[in-house]
């Protein structure tokens, strides 16, 4: 088994940071042997969530970790911001709900794109943790 890659943290502040973060996510998933569909789904989820950061909070961060062990390959990505938070989380997780005139597919869509999805939100700290996994 190869050594897990060290975690990488990316500041998210403008749209080119979105590209940097999702490319890093895609590169790591490719490195760990995830298929192309998996790679695209992870990169798209990162793209959705980091875009939310910029749209609603202005800036935040994205931490990409390789948590693989002998049994399975795991990539965990934590996206955080210190913005106003999501006022009604259950509503925000529903398809078609958006406060910004978007499609309202970002959060619920991202949840369907990945294997694990946790979101916690309060004014001052919103954190979304996603992970994809596959047997080693």
């Amino acid at each position, binding site marked *: 088994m190869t050594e897990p890659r060290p975690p990488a943290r990316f500041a998210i502040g403008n749209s080119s940071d979105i590209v940097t973060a999702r490319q890093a996510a895609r590169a790591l998933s490719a490195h760990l042997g995830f298929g192309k*569909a998996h790679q695209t789904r992870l990169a798209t989820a990162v793209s959705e969530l980091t875009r939310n950061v910029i749209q609603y909070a202005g800036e935040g961060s994205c931490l990409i970790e390789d948590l693989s062990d002998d049994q399975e390959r795991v990539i965990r990505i934590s996206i955080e911001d210190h913005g106003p938070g999501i006022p009604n989380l259950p509503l925000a997780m529903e398809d078609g709900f958006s406060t910004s005139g978007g*499609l309202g597919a970002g959060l619920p869509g991202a949840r369907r794109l990945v294997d694990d999805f946790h979101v916690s939100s309060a004014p001052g700290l919103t954190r979304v943790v996603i992970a994809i996994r596959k047997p080693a």
Partner: protein
Amino acid sequence: MTVSLPQFLQAHRDEMLAEWLAEWSSSSAVGLAATSSTAQTRHVMQTLFDEILSQLMVAPQDPPPGLDEHAPLCKHLRHLAAEQARHPEVATDPMRMMFSLRHLLLRHVSTWIREAGTTPVAEHLVQVNRYFDQIALFVFNNIINLRDRHISEQSLSLMELSTPVLRLWHRILLLPLVGIIDTGRARQVTDHLLEAIARHEARVTVIDLTGVPIIDTSVAQHIMKTIDAARLLGSRVVLTGISPEGAQTLTKLGIRFGDVICRATLRAGIAEALLIIGKRITAMEDQAR
């Protein structure tokens, strides 16, 4: 009678200049010394040296040396920054050049202080230091400004380049999208496309997404709006080039392109577009000779 600092500096001018030039050319095998001709660099450095030195040769009762925006020195420094901007691999060279001169001058001023035995020792050193801080800041700001301008120029020209609307056939347009679709580009693409549809009275527009790396909800929304606008002008839209994993991702995201005609490849999309206007591509027959 001890020599004053200006007198001391004047006396050692040639020696210091030679030292600076020698130190510079030996320390930078690559860099400005290598990219521009040596004689040219020497000339630039000599001019800078004289300007800086003349500022330092003020009598004690005069105000301390400062950087005036309109002084000839600033003009030379701007020139130095501009020269550097053309060779991005030597980004730190102008700064290094200035720091090496500061080092040299401080050394000489210290020598003078030791020889002259004057009491307000620190003051002279502080003045020289402060003066060079201003110079360094000025050069740095100039470099940053030039870089910024360079970058915004590049992104502008990239925008210009990246949104061609091609006339594929009579009343058929092709819009190949390549790269990242953000709000600015989406607006520009839509503008170009609508204008072309109106000009050519296009019946069909083929939008090819082969070159779009990620289609997330924001990109999808931009594309949908473009499609809607094209429809209002009476053009049907054929969407091509969504990869298998892209298609899977879009359905997981819950994005539906409704009743838009989609084809996997550009080839199939072109065939569909021709079908809509009642044409087809066939082999040439013998009877046509």
